[in-house]
């Protein structure tokens, strides 16, 4: 009993420390700039939704969120669609150089993103892809596809090959087996993979900012607008930050059960 209580107190302190910056941001987002800069308060004395209101009414702000969500979704879909067949091939077939190719995929994640920046910028401006959602989505595939293949291969290798064979004996074609039997079996893996693709793409700033100008400008880039000649707009920036957390929190909420299983089973 005593031990349990000690543990509880320890966890409570840990939780408090973790939440402190987020609480502070929430605190700031509900106050005006003058208020923020004048006194230190633990909670907003006169809470105001002005900052949030500005974000929801100013199209240059909310379009940042929409842009981010669009390219993140496109990226997650492309990554999954490419990685599922690739991971199946790596998991089920032996071909010349399969292990080398598998490792080579991973090495794409080892180089810093900045290395790829210039070639991407050059290429995209040549073929006119600059400042489109698909440009950012494709660029993020460079990192997300290898990760997705790596995670999914782990899940797929956990499914006995005999299930594939039984399905072929039963007369399933490969695509039909894959969609109706195999993918439901690795649901958790697909969920976890989607989560990681989403998260990476959502927080990535360098590519997203460089490859866009106005039409596909992501929220992270829009946030830098709060710095002006008159100084930082603290309240507005905190409100934007709070809203940026929301999609991530939602995705985690949806895959939370799969995530625990995914961490335990796969190679996350």
């Amino acid at each position, binding site marked *: 009993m005593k031990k349990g209580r000690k543990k509880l107190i320890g966890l409570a302190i840990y939780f408090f420390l973790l939440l402190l910056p987020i609480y502070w941001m929430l605190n700031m987002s509900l106050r005006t700039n003058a208020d923020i800069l004048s006194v230190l308060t633990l909670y907003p004395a006169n809470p105001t939704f002005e900052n949030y209101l500005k974000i929801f009414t100013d199209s240059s702000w909310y379009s940042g969120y929409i842009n981010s969500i669009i390219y993140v979704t496109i990226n997650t879909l492309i990554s999954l669609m490419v990685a599922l067949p690739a991971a199946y091939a790596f998991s089920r077939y032996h071909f010349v150089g399969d292990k080398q190719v598998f490792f080579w995929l991973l090495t794409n994640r080892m180089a810093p993103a900045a290395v790829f920046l210039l070639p991407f910028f050059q290429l995209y401006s040549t073929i006119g892809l600059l400042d489109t959602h698909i440009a950012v989505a494709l660029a993020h595939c460079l990192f997300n596809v290898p990760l997705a293949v790596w995670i999914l291969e782990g899940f797929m290798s956990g499914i*006995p090959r*005999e*299930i594939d*064979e*039984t*399905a*072929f*004996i*039963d*007369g*399933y*074609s490969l695509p039909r087996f894959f969609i109706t*039997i195999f993918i*439901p*079996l690795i649901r958790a893996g697909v969920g976890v993979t989607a989560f990681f693709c989403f998260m990476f793409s959502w927080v990535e700033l360098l590519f997203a900012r460089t490859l866009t100008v106005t039409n596909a400008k992501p929220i992270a880039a829009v946030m830098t607008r709060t710095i002006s000649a008159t100084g930082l707009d603290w309240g507005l920036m905190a409100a934007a930050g709070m809203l940026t957390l929301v999609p991530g929190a939602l995705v985690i909420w949806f895959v939370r059960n799969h995530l625990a299983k995914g961490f335990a089973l796969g190679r996350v």
Partner: protein
Amino acid sequence: MDIVLDGVSKIVNGEKHINNITLKIESDTTNVVLGHTLAGKTSLLRLMAGLDRPTTGQIVMEGKDVTGLSVRKRSVAMVYQQFVNYPSMSVYNNIASPLKMSGLSASDIDQKVRKVAAMLHIDNLLDRLPAELSGGQQQRTAIARALVKDSELLLLDEPLVNLDYKLREELQVELQDIFKERNAIVVYTTTEPSEALMLGGNIVVLDEGRVLQTGATPYVYHHPATTRVAQVFSDPPINYLPGVVHGRVARLGQGIDIPMEGHLESVPDGKYIFGVRPNHLFLTNGSGNKAEIRTKVALAEINGSETFIHVSHGDTHLVVQEDGIHPRHIGSDLAVYVNPCNFFVYNETGHLLASPFQCE
């Protein structure tokens, strides 16, 4: 439909899993493939199913070469040693899945699924997922899925080996009846001689990727052509005693003399290997016409209703299988009795010369 394997070999990473097998299996027969673990039983079934392609040789079905034909285009069903079902489908959908692929109408599918489910006593479990079933029920589902489509070739790879004793016996009896009713080639692999005898039909004795002997199961049991076949087809393993025949008397082991009468009569003088099954070694002389073997007890294994006594006779290790419980002290002397009419006689290269018949 018949199936012919013509000089089929399968080499994986330089290892010969199947070594030049030539085999003809007639239509509408039950065939047992008997062999120890790693004998190549599963490899053989996979080649027959078309899941693997032979390295060399041909597989001909009904006069048509099907060597490279995809498993999807063959009329084949298979049950694995592990319980393989589609985890995300209910038992009903699991069984129905091969029928759905063949494009039957929903009412036909329903009728067939319920019929085969009733036959395997899983008709009350149709709504469950495989994970919610016991091992026996899972394997019944897998067997039902294999039976529901009228395939011409039904392959079962040690289907009962992972089940507990009671379930295994139950299913063994049921499967015999099911196989009899089917117009298909049934190929059933097992490591257990008793299971092979129970299923009857024809047998293929497999060892290290080669076919040692084929024929009717009871015939092969009574006439194992080589010492290796007798070893594979005997559990516990058959006992061998070296012996010399001279002047109508055979001297076995350390001074055991037996007269060369009955089925032994035609064996000429020379050196031989005498084989006797563990259940033909006795602890009492009974009618008094048995030869005595002096042994020392190495181990007595009491297995419920029967006892396996491992004994040594000089350098030779013997196993006695006896009904009832016979505790023996390790190291004590034990007289074991054998009736000469129970001996198999092999020449020095291990080929059968005489096999016992009708022993009283």
